[in-house]
């Protein structure tokens, strides 16, 4: 599939899926089970609203989601209490597959969700979205319900506040435009068609999720895209414009850490795929600087992008899913 063809056929706008009853009918016809996973760490300000809206609109009014699960990394605020109050299934990440140990990072929660949740499709939604609406879920789910060949649908957000007629640039956040898009342009030009490859909202078929490894940190989205592209081709990817997303803005310094983790994952992928020869052992410390009383100080961040293996290789998962006969 050519890039332009992909853009024309696999890029959607949520408004195309306004008929929620039709999505539910199609989902039921295919006997699909859909799980919603919200990874959390101290999200008490937004978690209640997310669950209330999804439960009311996409479980009670239009039965599109079969389970809502919060996979928590050990919040110290009231995230778990509030989520449970509104009927989400709340899990502490470290309690899932305890024999595999516990790692810190969003990717860890996403990976463990594959074991814990029952859906044929899992939709991942970040917990820090201030303007959460049902479209964040059905916009990602619908392409999977209507198009069998699509396996992984990413969100992007593309509603300018003001624009006159004509051509306008469209793109992702700072890390996407400064790091990920240049890297994709160099090594995987097809993937540049993804407007926001790092967005935290996506819907994926289980057959894909259980077969790909999961970096536990910042690199999880980048690695997913490369792996899905490599194993199933560009046509397995889709993207949906969900209009606007209002969320916390991150400081440039935090984006530096994110970029460092993504770069580790990216280099590991291109090496594993044989695109670049053996790389030297890479350092895992990001150094940033600050001035304290006219003295420059070095800040060291240890960022190691560990990776969880494909879930299908985990015996407990195979047993739970009845895969070994």
């Amino acid at each position, binding site marked *: 599939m050519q890039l332009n063809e992909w853009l024309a056929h696999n890029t959607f706008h949520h408004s195309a899926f306004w008929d929620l009853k039709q999505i539910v009918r199609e989902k039921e016809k295919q006997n699909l089970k859909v799980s919603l996973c919200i990874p959390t760490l101290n999200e*008490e*300000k*937004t978690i*209640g*609203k997310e669950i*209330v*809206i999804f*439960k*009311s*609109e996409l479980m*009670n*009014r239009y039965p599109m989601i079969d389970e809502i699960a919060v996979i928590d990394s050990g919040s110290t605020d*009231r995230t778990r*209490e*509030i989520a449970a*109050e*509104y*009927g989400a299934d709340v899990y502490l990440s470290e309690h899932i597959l305890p024999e595999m140990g516990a790692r810190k990072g969003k990717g860890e929660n996403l990976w463990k969700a594959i074991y814990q949740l029952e859906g044929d499709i899992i939709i991942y939604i970040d917990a820090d979205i*201030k*303007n959460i*609406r049902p479209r964040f879920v059905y916009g990602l789910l619908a392409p999977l319900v209507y198009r069998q060949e699509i396996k992984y649908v990413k969100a992007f957000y593309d509603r300018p506040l003001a624009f006159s007629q004509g051509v306008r640039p469209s793109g992702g956040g700072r890390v996407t435009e400064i790091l990920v898009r240049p890297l994709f342009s160099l090594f995987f030009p097809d993937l540049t068609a993804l407007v926001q490859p790092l967005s935290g909202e996506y819907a994926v078929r289980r057959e894909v999720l259980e077969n790909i490894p999961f970096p536990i940190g910042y690199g999880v989205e980048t690695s997913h895209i490369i792996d899905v592209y490599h194993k199933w081709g560009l046509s397995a990817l889709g993207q949906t414009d969900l209009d606007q997303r*209002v969320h916390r803005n991150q400081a440039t310094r935090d984006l530096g850490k994110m970029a460092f983790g993504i770069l580790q994952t990216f280099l590991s992928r291109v090496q594993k795929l044989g695109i670049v020869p053996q790389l030297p052992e890479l350092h895992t410390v990001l150094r940033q600087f600050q001035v304290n009383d006219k003295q420059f100080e070095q800040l060291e961040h240890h960022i190691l992008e560990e990776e969880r293996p494909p879930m299908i290789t985990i015996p407990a998962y195979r047993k739970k899913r009845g895969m070994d006969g």
Partner: protein
Amino acid sequence: MAHKFKDILDALPEYRTAAESARETLLANLVMIGEIPAPSGQEDGRTRFLLDRFAECGLHNSSVDEEGNGMAILPGEVGEDSILLVAHLDTPFTRKDDHTLRVDNMTVRGCGVTDNSLGVAVLATLPTLLEKLNIHLNSDLMLMGASKSLGSADLRGLRFFLENNERPIRAGICIEGIELGRLSIGSIGMMRMEINCHVPEEYDWTRFGASGAILTINEVINKILEIAIPRRPRTRIVFGSVEGGKGFYPVSTNAVLRFEIRSDSAEMVKNIRRQIEDIVEELSSKTESDLTCKVLASRQPGGIAFNHPFSTHTRKILKRLGVEGRTSPSTSELSVFINHNIPAVTVGISTGEHLNQANEKAMIAPMFTGLAQLVGMLLAIDRGYCDATE
């Protein structure tokens, strides 16, 4: 189905339980409505949302009128007359204010949550609740999100509707987010006024006594405070806001004072208005600044009597729900019903804090009692218990 009033009272706990089971629906509606900014005259986003909800619930005649009111009808079994439930769509916040709402396990917080996003959310949720309870009214139930209600918009939405409506309306209920237990059965006389002070650019600032617009407005306030206010009929002048100036040192050239005259007597309101206009005229000539006085809104006193069946039965419903009813006058939508001789009351849905501030807060638990109260009232009206006895 409750037929006797006692049956309605006995069923109130069941209504409250049903309302609790619709918690997510109510809260989702509250969040989705509350996060749409709706300054007066710009309520179209909320209207669209409300109409979508009405359509999803299968209501009839879902429509927007010329003034931007959004409404729909839940047809009654007989449909000879209608009960009109109205909640104003607008809030006192601007589009620039952060309308993000926050939900925790006890509260919903954010701009406009109680005034009046909760009232509108109740309109959006009520058809679902009535369906859950398998309640079918004999009268048509008209649900209306009223536009252009607050401040100088002066209830234009509801006014327009009642002036042009041809359906017989048996009774009206105005829904406000807070306070649960509030029962307004009448309107006091009210006049909402604004005094503007403008000092011309060519003003001679070296002149003795030159003061600027803020001090002139201050002088206006002092003079208004000298007006003799009687104890009977009960009368008050409520100063709402003062604006003026641009910083620390420039002498202010513009200032605005907004206030309301409230009284049980329409004559007293008029009398005080005349005195204030005299003050404005006098100070305008003395200070050489341009002082103008505008009436932005007015209400005639009136309403149903304390012992009107609508009032007494509503109080009984509140009492049975364990809520202490507090009768207080209103100057909002209720007064429009009064002008059209339609028996009406205003009730609140929940308790809350920080009204009209960015950290406005509504408690979740009382909302279900508020909804049960509404269901009880609808049935009481529908079965004729609230009709005036001859």
